[in-house]
């Protein structure tokens, strides 16, 4: 009796753990979506800061708009609605006053702050939205500098999606159209090249090969699915890239073509395994009926079995497409990663996933947030593909 009681307790404990674990995937998805969206939406909703920021270098004491700072090494904020900026400090024993006007309604960042002409020779702009006033010094490396940072305005969605220049570090140009194009082109290429191959091998495995050779080919396909993508990439880099360079005589083999070739092999296992499963699920009665009507086995496979498995095959193609969209490492190794519109198959391209992987470790501020925005776009593409599969599944249920 006691023993039985304990078994019930263990049972309910196990059930609780199972429940908790099964919800974990939902929690993980929500957490990830939330994180990516929180980071990725921000550039489109607000400027990088609400105020102009100033930071001095090698200036022990300075006064900004009447307030005095000593040994200041972090940002001094100046509200956008301030009348202007007045900075006073000692330079080589002289009392210097730097005046600048603020016009928050300026169209471009260059128009927001205006400096008096006598100052122009000291002003540099090492990157967009940034001025550095450099004052000469007798000792190299100890020049007094004042950095003035202007907030970047709200990022325009159209400029992000349709911009063709990706120069995120200094020029602050964040157009990802070349990357979108590259992702679409590599995916389309991989699907065009890989899917027919995969479908042919699927028909061969499901309809024509004997049991032993079919299982041999299937295990090869399954093994192909298990190879880490970096190995595909490495193989592509070492074998395919030099080959393409030699064949096409281009300056480098790292290209759209290399990415397409590697990806089309990578989607084979996904497409083949699902297609074979759905071909095998076609009732034997259809095959018998077709053969009994004097159709050849090839006609039977092509005209009867294939159409009957259409939903499953479409699902497999979409899953393969999703794999191609999401693949990062292998593509990064062979595509060359130039953020440009390719004009030929041998041009180097950079996909959206590669951009995130390449730059995440090196980015900061808006550049970093916009990498998350690219993540959102990938998310949307994958969700759309999944929605198609869901629709197909309901269609399939209605038919059967």
């Amino acid at each position, binding site marked *: 009796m006691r023993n039985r009681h304990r078994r019930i307790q263990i049972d309910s404990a196990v059930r609780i753990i199972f429940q908790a674990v099964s919800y974990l995937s939902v929690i993980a998805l929500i957490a990830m979506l939330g994180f990516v969206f929180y980071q990725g939406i921000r550039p489109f909703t607000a400027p990088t800061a609400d105020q102009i920021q100033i930071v001095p270098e090698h200036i022990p004491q300075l006064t900004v708009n009447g307030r005095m700072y000593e040994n200041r090494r972090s940002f001094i904020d100046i509200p956008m609605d301030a009348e202007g900026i007045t900075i006073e400090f000692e330079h080589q024993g002289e009392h210097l006053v730097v005046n600048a006007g603020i016009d928050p309604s300026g169209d471009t960042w260059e128009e927001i702050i205006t400096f008096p002409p006598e100052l122009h020779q000291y002003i540099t702009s090492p990157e967009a939205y940034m001025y550095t006033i450099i004052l000469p010094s007798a000792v190299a490396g100890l020049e007094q500098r004042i950095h003035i940072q202007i907030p970047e305005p709200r990022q325009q969605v159209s400029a992000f999606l349709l911009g063709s220049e990706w120069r995120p570090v200094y020029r602050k140009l964040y157009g990802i159209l070349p990357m979108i194009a590259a992702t679409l082109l590599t995916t389309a290429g991989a699907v065009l090249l890989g899917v027919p191959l995969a479908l042919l091998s699927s028909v061969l495995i499901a309809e024509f090969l004997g049991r032993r050779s079919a299982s041999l080919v299937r295990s090869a396909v399954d093994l192909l699915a298990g190879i880490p993508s970096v190995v595909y990439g490495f193989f592509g880099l070492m074998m395919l890239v030099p080959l393409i360079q030699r064949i096409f005589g281009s300056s480098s083999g790292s290209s759209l073509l290399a990415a397409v070739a590697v990806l089309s092999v990578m989607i084979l296992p996904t497409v083949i395994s699902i297609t074979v499963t759905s071909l095998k699920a076609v009732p034997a009665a259809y095959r*018998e*009926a077709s053969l*009994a*009507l*004097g159709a050849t086995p090839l*006609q039977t496979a092509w005209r009867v079995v294939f159409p009957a498995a259409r939903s499953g095959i479409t699902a497999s193609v979409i899953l393969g497409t999703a794999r191609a969209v999401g693949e990062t490492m292998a593509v990064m190794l062979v595509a060359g990663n130039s953020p440009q519109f390719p004009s030929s198959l041998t041009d180097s391209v950079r996909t959206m996933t590669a951009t995130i992987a390449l730059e995440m470790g090196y980015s900061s501020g808006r550049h970093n947030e916009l990498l998350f925005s690219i993540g959102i776009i990938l998310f949307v593409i994958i969700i759309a593909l999944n929605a198609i599969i869901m629709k197909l599944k309901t269609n399939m249920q209605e*038919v059967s």
Partner: protein
Amino acid sequence: MEQILQMTQEKITIRDLNLFYGDFHALKHINMDIPNQEITALIGPSGCGKSTFIRVLNRMNDLIDGCSTTGAVTLDGTDISRIDVTELRTRVGMVFQNPNPFPMSIRHNVEYGPRMQGIRNRHRLSEILENSLIKAALWDEVKDRLNKSALSLSGGQQQRLCIARAIAMEPEVILMDEPTSALDPIATKKIEELIRDLKQEYTIVIVTHSMSQAGRISDRTAFFLLGEVKEYGRTADLFERPEHDETQQYIQGHFG
């Protein structure tokens, strides 16, 4: 029996047919002559080999691994192993136990066979479609929805569609493997009427589980038992004066 065979013209002759699944001897020393434009019923208990036998006639057993035959089967005097298998199947059509229309439109189901034979002419295909459906007594029911999915038809309609699909090939022989076992009595009655009508043009071999069906529609009946043909003759004779005790017992429902 010798007399009967001399009087009619044989469409199919079977001489000393043996069939093996691996080591298993499934059909033993079968000798039969199937006459032209008659209905031959094959009866017998489950597992007696009647379905296996019917599948020998259009070589559907070729698809099964480890299946081998000895002896000779001829169609109009030609050994069927020497006829190209796809040609043989256009001459010997088949209707299966469960209605198995393809998951496509009614039109495409009927046109499938002719299309596979390379007929592309739309006019010709429409003609075949209409003729076949009329012969299968389905035309009036489906003529307004030829482009609808065949799976939307009822079970009886689906089976008649399968018959139409077989007829579309203009075969000489139609093999039917328990064509009504999955159907209700009304649908069964319709199919039986249809089979009787088809006799005018085709030689029909039908496997059936139902003694009364064999009695109602067939001209000849063969009784199979444990892979052998125990008795073969005119249906009326076989039912009224069986030569063997096993036949008698089976007909009276003692086993099977």
